[in-house]
């Protein structure tokens, strides 16, 4: 919700936002919605004596400066980019894997849970310490350890920022493919935990397709490698099972990622449509025609309106949708695919098709898409980012349903999303100051998720279940399915010490979870 911030907002506004958030948190108290059982927690507060002992022990391990326990220090860690907040008791910032392991062991002895945290850009409350305990920040493990271009592998620590991997190899003609829109801020550890995607994962795959191995600290402090530097390691694919486990199976301390060679040619077009149906049908037609674009991104009228108010790029304000198509490969391929794609745009009634002639023009076409999320603040005080998926064939229908849901709940919904994957991001706009509106927003969000599931899709394509969606996982999986997942959990973390209260629906507890406007790092898009 509502980062009412401009992309270049400075430190002072961060402060303003923080205090505002706090006021909200206190004013809201325990929000009714959560007490209704949708979210549940049970804080295991450490007894006063042992709490101080634990703090002392942690200080021994990571150094005095890197253990935070005063309220004014830990409050920064109470929230990620979702609307959920819970105060951590202790925050520890280890510097290396040995320290991570020692912290985990200490926590285990004291019986407190551990919540790993990367950059805190998660949108599902994954890094929020819903059951209290220690928030373990991996931010200081931020070194790129090895770049091996001959083998197309890089080994990095979890706190490395996604974009920095590509930056480190771009001059040599390589890139790291999964590119969440938050890539300027999110950590690779968080990406692994959430199996993050991005605009270009349509052609290249998501995080799990690019991670060869991970070093993790298990819940008993043991340090192990899952996977390897090559694929097909004998035995169960533990690395594959780990990616996307949202910090519940272990703490990532190293990641071996694949690097890809940059493509010879990139072509991009932007098509303007007078109705959403034409745009979604084009998406369906392009993939059905056997063209796998690198990216296929859609924005609706409300998002266009936001962009044109916030950071105008010259989109026609009366357009119902703009579609961005990007194709990569050898020149002959991109030319032919581009021609086909633009013919399909025209056939589905595109009013205008602009092709970028060079890198500069390409950046211009992307600018509006990248600015849309940040610009939402110009048309609404708050918004709630949803994340659902449908089979591509269902896109036209689901977009009509989303519009209907907006009408039914009396809410405006701005859609900016990874259309080629069928991955929707309906941003539900609202004003937190209007009593009852947030409840309606949550209900509308749930209705969208139900519609996605009814269409044969999923309740999350890339943001994860975290705290936010654990009440909805039952829409997809029955008790037996979830119990099978629990067997995996128990094989790694039998005491449920790591990131408890996430993913699985759990009985109501007494933890103190609140809601407040999300804190978005500046300059990100979605």
């Amino acid at each position, binding site marked *: 919700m509502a980062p009412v911030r401009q992309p270049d907002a400075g430190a002072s506004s961060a402060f303003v936002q923080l205090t505002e958030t706090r006021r909200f948190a206190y004013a809201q108290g325990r929000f009714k919605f959560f007490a209704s059982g949708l979210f549940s927690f049970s804080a295991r507060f450490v007894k006063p004596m042992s709490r101080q002992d634990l703090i002392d022990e942690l200080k021994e391990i990571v150094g005095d400066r890197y253990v935070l326990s005063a309220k004014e220090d830990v409050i920064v860690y109470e929230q990620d980019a979702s609307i959920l907040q819970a105060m951590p008791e202790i925050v520890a910032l280890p510097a290396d894997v040995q320290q991570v392991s020692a912290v985990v062991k200490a926590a285990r002895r004291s019986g407190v849970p551990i919540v790993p945290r990367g950059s805190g850009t998660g949108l599902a409350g994954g890094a929020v310490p819903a059951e209290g305990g220690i928030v373990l920040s991996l931010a200081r493990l931020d070194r790129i350890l090895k770049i091996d271009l*001959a*083998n*197309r592998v890089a080994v990095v620590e979890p706190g490395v920022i996604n974009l920095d991997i590509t930056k480190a190899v771009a001059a040599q003609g390589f890139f790291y493919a999964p590119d969440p829109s938050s890539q300027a801020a999110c950590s690779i550890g968080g990406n692994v935990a*959430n199996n993050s*995607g991005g605009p270009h*994962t349509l052609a290249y*795959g998501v995080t*799990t*397709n690019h991670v060869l191995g991970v070093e993790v600290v298990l819940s008993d402090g043991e340090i192990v*490698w899952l996977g*390897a*530097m*090559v*694929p*097909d*390691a*004998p*035995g*169960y*694919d*533990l690395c*594959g*099972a780990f*990616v*996307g486990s949202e910090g519940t199976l272990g703490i990532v301390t190293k990641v071996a990622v694949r690097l890809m060679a*940059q*493509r010879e040619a990139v072509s991009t077009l932007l098509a303007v449509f007078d109705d959403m149906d034409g745009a979604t049908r084009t998406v369906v037609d392009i*993939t*059905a025609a*056997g063209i796998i674009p690198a990216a296929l991104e859609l924005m609706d009228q409300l998002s266009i309106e936001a962009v044109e108010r916030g950071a105008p790029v010259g989109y026609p304000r009366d357009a119902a949708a703009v579609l961005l198509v990007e194709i990569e*490969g*050898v020149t*002959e*391929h991109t030319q*032919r695919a581009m021609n086909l794609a633009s013919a399909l745009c025209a056939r589905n009634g595109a009013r205008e098709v602009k092709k970028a002639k060079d890198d500069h023009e390409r950046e211009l076409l992307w600018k509006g898409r990248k600015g849309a999320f940040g610009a939402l603040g110009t048309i609404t005080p708050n918004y709630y980012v949803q994340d659902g998926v449908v*089979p*591509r*064939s*269902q896109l036209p229908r689901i977009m009509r349903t989303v519009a209907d849901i907006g009408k039914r709940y009396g809410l405006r919904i701005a859609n900016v999303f990874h259309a080629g*994957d*069928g991955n929707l991001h309906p941003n539900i706009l609202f004003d937190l100051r209007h009593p009852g509106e947030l409840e309606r927003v949550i209900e509308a969000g749930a209705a969208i998720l139900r519609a996605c599931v009814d269409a*044969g*899709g*999923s*309740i*999350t394509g*890339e*943001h994860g*279940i975290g705290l936010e969606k654990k009440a909805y*996982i039952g829409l*997809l*999986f029955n008790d*037996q*399915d979830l119990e*099978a997942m629990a*067997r995996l*959990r*128990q*094989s790694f973390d039998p005491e449920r010490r790591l990131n408890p209260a996430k*993913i699985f629906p759990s009985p109501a507890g007494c933890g103190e979870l609140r809601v407040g406007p999300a804190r978005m790092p500046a300059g990100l898009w979605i």
Partner: protein
Amino acid sequence: MHGSLDNLCARLEQVLGAGSVRRDPLSLKEHSVDGQAPSLICVPADAEQLGAALRIASEMEVAVIPWGGGTSMRLGNPPRAFDLALALERLNRVVEHDDVSLTATVQAGTKIAALQETLGRARQFLALDPPHPAHATVGGLVAANQSGPRRMAYGGVRDQVIGMKMILADGTPIKAGGKVVKNVAGYDLCKLFVGALGTLGIITEVTFKMAPIPESAATVLAQGSVGECLGFVSELLRSRLLPAEVAILNADAFEATGMATDTAAVAIWTEGFTEGVERHLRDIGRMAQGVGMAPEILRDRPHQHLWEKIRDFGAGENLFVYRLTVPLAAVARVLMTAERKDFLAAPLAALAFAGTGTIRLVTKPDAAPAAIFPKLLSLANEHGGHAVMEAGPPALKGAFDVWGPSPSTLSIMRELKRRFDPRGMLNPGRFLGNL
């Protein structure tokens, strides 16, 4: 097994109906694994029956081996016990082909060739190419993790599976993933079942990503010494070209394709839009000439024929097949080492997929693995890779773990096995660490 065979047979027939059980000697022999024949074959009609059969089997602690097409049964350690073969042949339907979304849901017993034919009607295909597609099944391909050529372009099994239904050892049906290409709801249990060789549960249905059948496809074939081939390939891999697969065959391997003797070769598969393919053929041909090789272009039948041979490499009876997986830059060193006359003292056919680092080495039955496998293990290890003995004559297996030395994560794998199959009745002993 608790109780008698007759009892098991009667219980299965009672629940699944007469005709669901076979025990004639010929069928039993045909369902042998590493020389061990089962006592009974059960052929459930659907997933529900399969669950019922598993429930009975688990009550009686019967050792069960699921049976797809039987094409990957040489993989793994010899089974510790084998009472019941659960044949998936009747689970052979394409449940749904959503061609617009490029996904398909298929029952596990469906033969790959039959599936490709169905998909082909909508000009799509599953970009996985296991040996013997007329017999190999979807479930077997997934459980044995058989990707085949073109992994460079499309990824492996784990990258193309998006959903699964499986039945656990106690008969509980579960599902994982879904029907959409992007999905992070809950743990990705599909990954756990890909390549698990049916030791955690029996796969009954798989949903895959599909690929459009390319407009055009062709191969550049260039012959020369292994050294020349490697030089050529390393230049190719440094370029911006995007071949679908790059295979290097040493002289013995190339000979096995029936194409030539006494020379190694590189085969490069390119596909896509016609103009893209022609561009690849041109540039790759020029590159080959640049290193002094004489490239030829194969299209249509000769192109298909060559890749079928490559796909089926090592699939003959009684051979030893080793798979080494190493970092890309180490492929050259591994192949050169394997070429050295003093390395193994046995004739060796070698096939490498240079874009994925997968190398298969095949030796004749008289080359004892006890001398060879340790050497291959340390060769792979030296380069940060691993080695697996994928097949060997039953009499010579069993003395060592065909999956190589157990990793430090064996305890987690054991724990998983214990929780998914507490009685250890599914494919007992065949997986890594005799799980």
